């Protein structure tokens, strides 16, 4: 990969890996986090806190099963509330990982190598968090398995015209593929850990996980083909997932849902929030574990640029929506637009515009693009913005649809909030475990970035 190699000497741009590293140093530095370095108090405190939040979520869900969906704010006409908002939000976040590993791999963006590992992990945990909601938001969750086509004595099958069925398949496929992608990526590093670790049982664990990987040239060959193909498959998949999620709305006839622009701008929005989450995680991690050499300014910059670009696509989406609302001449769409701007939920809408369109524009400034603090906060703002976007789409479209007689209002209850915050806790708790147990950066791919990795024919 000569062009990347050059790029490290190119003074214009920051390198993807700071000079002076060898195979050995890279290996040691990264595997040390898992093997030798003791877990700090900070880790325990953080993990403990988020674990408690997870427990709170489980409590909220338990009570939900006991009493019924009525403990939430959902009602008629607003049949979907926080549950679906959070589902879409998490799924969106879950896009960055696969995107970074797959698409950037195909585009030969080798700078991805240092962030793809934990981006993928983040994807998995985000998808897991997302997966909770569709399962618990139904009226009779103990029957949710009816959404899978399995042979039954009723001789009835799922209804495949429903976007929810598409969702079931899209999301479960996405979860499976990203899990495989992530795991196969880990296999060579498991081997490294196996060979580095001292304790026998640790060796055995990593040994098993590594499947007995020994780095044979033939294996590497097949491995790389597989990895490339998987990337090739994951790319259309990742684009399809949020497209399908957007169908949940686009296929409906509710004004504010029934829009053809949804698929592209949902995908863009997903990447937008995904990268925001990546940065929010990467910035503290590189600081705490001293990985500035591997996650360099370059990574922050590129991520910022991606956010800027997708942010603009999202802005375009809003623009088109508004324009069609006005230009389409449909009295219901026109009202939906009016209602977003002036209705009871107008503050949320304006906040959304500020978070998703206005503030991110500062990323045009190079100094902010490279300042971790600034990026950290901007990412936070974007995540809030993207959550609001889903809130506007789900709730504000539903609460005033066709018949004025059946308009209503939506008020989330404490159970809504507990479940939502709980999933954030679960997500972060999982990240904490991940950092301690698995190499947060792909060791073998980092090796390939070193000059020594170069061979001449």
């Amino acid at each position, binding site marked *: 990969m000569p062009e990347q190699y050059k790029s490290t000497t190119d003074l214009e741009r920051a390198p993807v890996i700071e000079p002076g590293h060898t195979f050995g140093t890279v290996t040691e530095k990264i595997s040390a986090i898992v093997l030798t370095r003791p877990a700090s108090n900070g880790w325990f405190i953080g993990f403990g806190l988020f674990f408690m939040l997870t427990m709170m979520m489980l409590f909220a869900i338990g009570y939900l099963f006991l009493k019924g969906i009525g403990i939430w704010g959902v009602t008629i006409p607003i049949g979907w509330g926080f549950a679906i908002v959070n589902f879409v939000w998490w799924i969106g976040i879950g896009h960055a990982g696969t995107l970074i590993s797959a698409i950037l791999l195909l585009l030969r963006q080798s700078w991805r190598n240092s962030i793809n590992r934990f981006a993928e992990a983040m994807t998995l945990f985000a998808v897991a968090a997302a997966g909770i909601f569709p399962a618990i938001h139904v009226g009779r969750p103990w029957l949710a398995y009816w959404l899978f086509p*399995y042979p039954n004595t009723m*001789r009835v099958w799922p209804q495949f015209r429903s976007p929810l069925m598409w969702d079931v398949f899209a999301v479960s496929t996405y979860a499976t593929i990203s899990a495989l992608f992530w795991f196969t990526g880990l296999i060579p590093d498991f081997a490294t850990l*196996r060979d580095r670790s001292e304790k*026998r049982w640790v060796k*055995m664990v990593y040994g098993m996980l590594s*499947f007995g990987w020994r780095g044979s040239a033939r294996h590497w060959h097949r491995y790389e083909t597989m990895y490339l193909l998987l990337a090739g498959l994951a790319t259309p998949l990742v684009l399809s997932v949020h497209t399908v999620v957007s169908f949940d709305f686009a296929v409906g006839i509710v004004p504010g849902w029934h829009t053809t622009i949804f698929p592209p701008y949902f995908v863009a929005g997903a990447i937008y929030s995904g990268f925001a989450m990546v940065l929010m995680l990467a910035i503290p991690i590189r600081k705490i574990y001293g990985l500035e050499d591997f996650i360099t300014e370059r990574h922050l910059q590129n991520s910022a640029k991606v956010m800027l670009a997708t942010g603009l696509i999202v802005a375009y989406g809003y623009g088109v929506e508004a324009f069609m609302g006005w230009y389409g001449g449909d009295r219901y769409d026109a009202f939906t637009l009016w209602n977003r701007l002036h209705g009871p939920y107008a503050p949320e809408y304006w906040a959304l515009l500020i978070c998703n369109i206005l503030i991110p524009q500062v990323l045009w400034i190079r100094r902010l693009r490279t300042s971790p603090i600034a990026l950290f906060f901007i990412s936070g703002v974007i995540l809030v913005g993207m959550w609001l976007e889903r809130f506007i789409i789900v709730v504000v479209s539903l609460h005033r649809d066709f018949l004025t007689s059946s308009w209503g209002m939506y008020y989330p209850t404490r159970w809504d909030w507990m479940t939502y915050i709980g999933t954030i806790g679960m997500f972060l708790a999982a990240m904490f475990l991940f950092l301690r147990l698995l190499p947060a950066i792909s060791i073998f791919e980092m090796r390939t970035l070193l000059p020594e990795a170069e061979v001449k024919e």
Partner: protein
Amino acid sequence: MSQIFHRSTNTLSRATIFGAVFIVAALIWVGYAIQGSPYVTYAGVRKPQPVPFSHQHHVTGLGIDCRYCHTSVETSSFAGIPPTKTCMNCHSQIWTNAALLEPVRASYRSGESLQWTRVNALPDFVFFNHSIHVTKGVGCNTCHGPVDTMPLMYQQESLQMEWCLGCHRDPGKNLRPRDQVFNMRYLPPATGNPVQVDGRSFTDQDSLGAYLITKYRVRVGKLKTSDGQTSVGDITSCSTCHR
């Protein structure tokens, strides 16, 4: 570095991965099997009853017609369970002091009902109507089985939705002439056992079924689209049984 694992682990680990697929498949199959098993459906299970009433004795032995006890079977959704009075019609004359029948007499004296255990029970969200099935030529034993040979009553079929659909999708295979509905000994037509309807004689169920479907106006129509695709027919529409 020394070996961590023994040779055998290789085979072992591969077997595990390979086996997992089959284990999952097996689990699904087991679940399905249990759902259809008598444990769940009660098919063939004899339930405890206050009096060990023998249909075999009363139907085969004494030749009593179904409708003598199940009076409303032709006129109502509910076939009817005989009031104690019906038992006493005879048992005030015969077996007047059989110990077995004490509950019956007690009920008649005190005016307190016998409490039977329902044998052929459907869930509350299923609405079955006897009169229409009987009228359209579905025999008693088509669903209730050889009641005339049951010393103790039990449920013959699974009574699960797939079983109901089996007939609602193709009623022809179970229809018989109306005058044979209550005939427990009825045999479906076959060469050597022709069945007579309106002077015509049938020697196979298909032609008989086809004939009776039109004769008894059984609604097996399918709703067609303009390009000829068909969706559920009248009696497989959901609201036929669920309301």
